[in-house]
């Protein structure tokens, strides 16, 4: 593959160009209630090329490596034509030349497991779920993905690298009377297949949550102090701050650039956050990004002050900062965009008991059901439990939180000492040709207490 990629970059008459090609092998199994709704193994392939001329940028996606040289020439021509219209030239930060290959090793490689064994494992979990009281249906998915990627650029980098990830994600749907509720079961999110087996305890916990949710009343809307569980804290930091640490989402926003300038006190002094793709064995772990930059740990918030942000070579130049190795494409053929890797909140000193005891009227909020992040952000939780006079009370449902980046991070008053790193996570980010969904991310966090958060709710 390397030879074809390097050949495609020859004599392009550009300031800079790079090219990536992916050969993947995927397995997907989907169970919908008692039925298999999808069972597939397949080998998608695709490539992506970028060309820069006098500050103009053109990119292209293609399917066949045989077309790489032709596509690269066309893309270079498109960049030359676009250069006539440029008023704000794009620059690229320098990055070390990398000529190295990165393989993947894992305790139990999902590629060595038969399709039959994968199907039987998913079916085993499905049988347990479908047998539970009030569960009316399930949607269970097994997925593994192996990617063999080649990358080359006109600076001289030439790399072969691999990604491998497997996970099981289940949605359990229950009905009691008119109430229909969902719980989520998710395990894996790494290259190690053995993390998927013998996880009945996780499934049973999800089924117990569903059982309680089916009798739970919808939450009452308002502004409350809350305690977020570690998973909720991870989703919170991802949505509330993580996306704003991706420099492509702040680059063109003068107000955000000023407020998020290095050293600005953005959060409570007890909060420290970093991004670390070098942690071994998590969904967001990788050795090199998709523009050939080696992965590294990046501090984002140190004691409440902005300490860094996540960059591509374009944004690093625009901010006059160093590259961080966070420019990644979710799939074959996509343009790489800036993505978080493993987003971690460092442990604090508070105990969960102290956090609960400090609240007279609020909620303990658990899990993350997805969200969206801007200056204002929102995210859904799996469930919440009312806190009254320092005691946990009944469970409530339909929990969606909203907040403002600049006020909510300063409203964190306690950081727990019980950090957990998560298994399966996923995240979507828009790029020019649609949302790039990826499960190659993760988050880790302890419990957090936030003094005031807006909770939506039909009842008030």
């Amino acid at each position, binding site marked *: 593959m390397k030879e074809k990629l390097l050949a495609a970059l020859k004599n392009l008459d550009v300031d800079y160009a790079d090219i990536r090609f992916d050969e993947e092998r995927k397995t997907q199994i989907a169970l919908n209630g008692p039925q298999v709704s999808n069972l597939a193994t397949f080998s998608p392939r695709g490539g992506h090329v970028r060309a820069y001329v006098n500050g103009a940028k053109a990119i292209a996606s293609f399917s066949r490596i045989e077309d790489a040289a032709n596509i690269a020439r066309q893309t270079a021509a498109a960049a030359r034509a676009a250069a006539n219209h440029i008023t704000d030239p794009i620059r690229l930060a320098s990055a070390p030349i990398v000529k190295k290959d990165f393989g993947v090793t894992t305790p139990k490689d999902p590629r060595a497991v038969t399709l039959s064994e994968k199907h039987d494992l998913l079916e085993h979990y499905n049988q347990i779920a479908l047998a539970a009281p009030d569960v009316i249906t399930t949607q269970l998915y097994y997925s593994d993905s192996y990617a063999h990627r080649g990358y080359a650029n006109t600076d001289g980098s030439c790399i072969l690298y691999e990604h491998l990830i497997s996970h099981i994600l289940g949605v359990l749907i229950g009905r009691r009377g008119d109430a229909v509720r969902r719980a989520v079961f998710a395990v894996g999110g790494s290259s190690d297949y053995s993390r998927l087996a013998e996880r009945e305890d996780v499934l049973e916990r999800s089924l117990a949550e569903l059982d309680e949710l089916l009798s739970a009343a919808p939450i009452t809307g308002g502004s409350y102090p809350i305690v977020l569980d570690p998973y909720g804290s991870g989703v919170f930091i991802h949505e509330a701050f993580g996306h704003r640490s991706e420099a492509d989402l702040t680059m063109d926003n003068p107000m955000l650039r000023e407020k998020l300038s290095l050293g600005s006190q953005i959060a409570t002094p007890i909060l420290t956050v970093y991004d670390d793709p070098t942690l071994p064995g998590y969904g967001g772990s990788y050795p090199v990004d998709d523009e050939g930059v080696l992965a590294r740990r990046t501090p984002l918030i140190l004691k409440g002050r902005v300490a860094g942000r996540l960059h591509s070579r374009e944004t690093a130049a625009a901010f006059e900062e160093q590259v961080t190795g966070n420019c990644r494409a979710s799939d074959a*053929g996509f343009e790489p965009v800036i993505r978080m890797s493993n987003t971690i909140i460092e442990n604090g000193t508070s105990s969960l008991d102290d956090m609960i005891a400090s609240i007279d009227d609020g909620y303990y909020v658990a899990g993350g059901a997805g969200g969206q992040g801007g200056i204002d952000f929102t995210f859904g939780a799996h469930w919440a439990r009312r806190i009254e006079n320092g005691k946990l009370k009944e469970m409530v449902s339909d929990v969606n939180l909203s*907040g403002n980046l600049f006020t909510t991070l300063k409203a964190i008053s306690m950081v727990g000492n019980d950090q957990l790193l998560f298994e399966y996570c996923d995240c979507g980010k828009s790029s020019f040709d649609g949302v790039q969904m990826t499960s190659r991310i993760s988050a880790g966090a302890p419990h957090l207490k936030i003094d005031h958060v807006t909770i939506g*709710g039909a009842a008030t």
Partner: protein
Amino acid sequence: MKLLTQARESADQAEVFVRHRKSTLVRFAKNSLRLVADRDTSECALRVVQQGQLGASFGESPDQPELLRDALSAASFGQAIPFRFAERTNRENVICYDRHTAALTAEALIELGDGVRRRVLAAEPDAVVNLHTLVESGMRHIASSEGVDAEEAFSRMELLVELPFPSRGTDIGAAGRLTSIHPVSASDEWIESLLEQRHWGNNPSRPSTGRWPVLLTPYASNLLTLALAAGLSGAHVAQGASPLADKVGQQILSQHLTIHENPRHPNLAFRRSFDDEGTPVSSRPVIERGVLRGFLTDLRTSAMLDCPSSGSAVRRTLFSEKIEDAPSPGWLGAVIEPGDRSWRDLLAGIEEGLLVTHMLGLHSCNLLQGQYTVQANGFHVRNGVPVGYLERTMLSGNLYEDFLSIRAISSEREPTTQGPLSVAGLAPYLLLESAQITVG
């Protein structure tokens, strides 16, 4: 198709779906050309049934030899499936392609974008213009061992312009989208309406917590169509999870609301004549004056419900549209009937309320039960006039309660796009009598 012939020799049933897409996108950011992007890709999906069991495989070309091997291997597990692939039926073609659209070059798109940029800046020199112009075209072809052999070319053009509110950087702002099978252009009136929105967003303004009238723009009508899709899905109906399962013939929404599933409608930007399983699509009422008339089904769920497929199979999820997304029931063209008053009349009649242009967080709601709690973006309205942009404002409720009381529907409609958290169709402005607002 050679792959289908080979598959028929080895499997009881086979279905081949091939999609070729070519697109060019030009993006301007912060008033400057930022990107020219081309895409030229092919995708192929093969589904086989062997001894009653389903297997699938995907690739970029039907010529890949491993496709059949992988699909047959996958078909050796699981239970028997309850359906057969689509059979040959008479299908009336519709025009989904305009050669003038397909012929547009990057240069032409740059010229269009630059023209819009110049016109906005001529009127508002301090404005920041972010926009993209997109043209895509291609071919979809589906053939099955049961006799379907359907093929159609498609094209689409889109112009999306965003003008950030001055005090919010680029986070939120005025936005407008034009999309069609045919070439689109920005009229002076359309640009003026964008500039008007930008002025409405000069300052934040927050309503108080309580129940207020809500005017949803056509783009924000996905609150209705996405939540309704979960209840209408034949899969959820068959499994007893949908609250609509036993409600056919009953009033479930306002009598002002009539919604057809009509992917053939001439004004749709994603017009088509067959679904992603090759079943012909047609116009049929799903909601008629608020009364539920039917569900969205594909081959699998129609077999479970013992009815013909409604031609609503889509290879798509809430966020993605990938060849490997298994077909499932969803909207292909949600066409909401218009009302008889202009949207400006509806706005003028709001003493205090919200004009909601889009929402955050819809995907994390319990849409299956109609529950929604989202962050509302748009404008606070007083005495019929938008007085500032919304911030920290959450909109909550239940579709099957709040959409029972629709005050009015606009006479104007706009095409909506198929994409992440959005539904292809045609939607007017919808004025809800009231919805719960929580302000932080």
